[in-house]
């Protein structure tokens, strides 16, 4: 719609013809190199699994993850480019700054740690570690790491899973789990997760078989 027609196309100074240059549109909010500032809302995207990132990009563009800014920005892009974008950020393995000090009391943090490491069998809540890995740094190509994310972002995502605003392919395991969480569980988890340092050596394996079947782990369709 922007019918830009200039009279002269000047030869600008040399610049880098790279993916990083192309994706300045992303790093404006997600931070330099997609690393994200720990005090902001926008999540880090660097180093997350490529298949996970691709799935999220497609979900934003196609409306399964409702966020108008992302949907409009990605609307003119095809799957091939979304795949390239996902691969670019997935290959960035960057050191992370120490997490900010937590603003909540020790009891809340303990509750968060218990849920993340052990879950709550009585309520059918599996431990985060069971799928997201021993170090919570993600497993394989589809399961994202949970560390290095801002507390507000974690809160908003767990909330969105609970209300159904964020969805994944059926069976939607995260929706099932989030619906078993109370608001205070969400708050405790978000604060504990946001307070954990990102491990220098991510341990990309789950302690055992996944406790629930997840449509999003079946590979792209």
């Amino acid at each position, binding site marked *: 719609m922007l019918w830009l027609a200039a009279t002269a*196309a000047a030869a600008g100074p040399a610049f880098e013809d790279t993916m990083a240059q192309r994706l300045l549109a992303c790093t404006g909010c997600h931070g330099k190199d997609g690393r994200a500032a720990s005090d902001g809302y926008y999540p880090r995207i660097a180093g997350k699994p490529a298949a996970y990132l691709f799935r999220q990009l497609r979900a934003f563009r*196609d409306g399964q993850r409702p966020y108008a800014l992302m949907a409009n920005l990605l*609307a003119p892009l095809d799957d091939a480019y979304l795949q390239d974008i996902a691969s670019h950020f997935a290959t960035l393995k960057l050191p992370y700054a120490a997490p900010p000090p937590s603003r909540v009391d020790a009891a809340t943090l303990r509750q968060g740690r218990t849920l993340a490491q052990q879950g709550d069998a009585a309520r059918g809540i599996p431990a985060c570690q069971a799928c997201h890995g021993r170090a919570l740094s993600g497993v394989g190509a589809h399961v994202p790491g949970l560390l290095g994310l801002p507390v507000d972002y974690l809160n908003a995502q767990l909330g969105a899973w609970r209300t159904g605003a964020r969805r994944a392919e059926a069976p939607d395991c995260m929706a099932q789990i989030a619906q078993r969480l109370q608001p205070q569980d969400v708050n405790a988890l978000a604060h504990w997760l946001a307070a954990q340092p990102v491990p220098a050596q991510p341990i990309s394996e789950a302690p055992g078989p996944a406790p629930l079947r997840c449509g999003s782990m079946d590979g792209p369709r």
Partner: protein
Amino acid sequence: MKRALAGLVGLSFVLAAALWWLNVRGDGDMQAAPVAVNRATLIERGAYLARAGNCQDCHTPRGAAPYSGGRGIPTPFGTVYSSNLTPDAATGIGAWTAAEFRRALHNGRSRDGRLLYPAFPYDNYTRIGAEDADALFAFLRSLPAAVQPNRPHALRFPYDTQLALAVWRALYFRPGRFEPQAMQSADWNRGAYLVQGLGHCSACHAGRNALGATRDPAALAGGLIPLQNWYAPSLGAQSPQPVAALLQRGVSDSAALLGPMAEVVLHSTQHLRQPDLSAMAAYLQSLPQVEAPHARAAVPTPTQLQRGASLYETRCAHCHGDDGQGRSRAYVPLAGNRALQRDPPANLVQVVLGGAFAASTAGNPRPFGMPPFATELSDEDVAAVLSYVRNAWGNRATAVQALDVQRWRSSVRP
């Protein structure tokens, strides 16, 4: 008194008959057999034409089965939902005949005779030839059937009534056909056929009146897309070669198609054959260029320009250059850029707030992006930086006001 009453009754009958006639004329021969051509060829031709018409975009909600319908088209009168075009017999067009499909395209009536809403641009499609209509029908019938009941429109009274629609059609819709101009070249005529018909360019590039009818659709003089708040500019008098290349690639050294038009490039124009793109460009070149009238002659204040300059230096110059010169094949130049100096500056506000990518196309598979500044810049900041770039490096245009930014900030994109 009795005679007056009888006269009144008579007059209402005449009006009703006229309204009825105005709505059924142009139905065409409902018994007509479809054009007999090799079916595979017809389907292939229909698939191409469906690209040219970008049918899939409106008839597919984001992430749903292609052509299964249900995408909401926001209008000032409420939301119109597109229909299921797959060959499912109960919920799609599986039970339709080719003649019924032609009537829908040419005269805006559904299989059961109901009047269709002109969000489905039958005021353009009435120019589609019968053979092309049959090809589109054959293509749609070849798709996998999706069971997806049509969603009722969510329109306000009285726009939700067939009577209102009948009156609207009597006022604004004339069934017609494409009449080639003997004085013009075959190329020009092909371009006119695509632009006026399937391409339905006037749906955005002609302004609309208070009742949503396009104003002088043939002139393509430009208009603000209601609710989306992108300005679809005048298409006349563009040099044909860059236009054809731009429709195919989505970008050129000096221009980029962004916003809703980038989606049109992604789904439609990049897939069109070179001769068709050239024909469309040749036709557009013959249209007069129309500059939107300046709503007001606001001149930016020195304070606003100063603020804009310092914002430009920190946020924009890295990519667009210290002198607005841009970077070849990546970032459009701002110096001397005509689109930048156009009124209303709605598109500039949208791009600064929401960021933008050009379409990924075969010729430009990995476009360079611009970040969104919606969360970072205030309405005043956006107005200042735009007023600055519209008046730097020899550019000259009216000031952008913070009020414009605020007005366009909350836009609806389907």
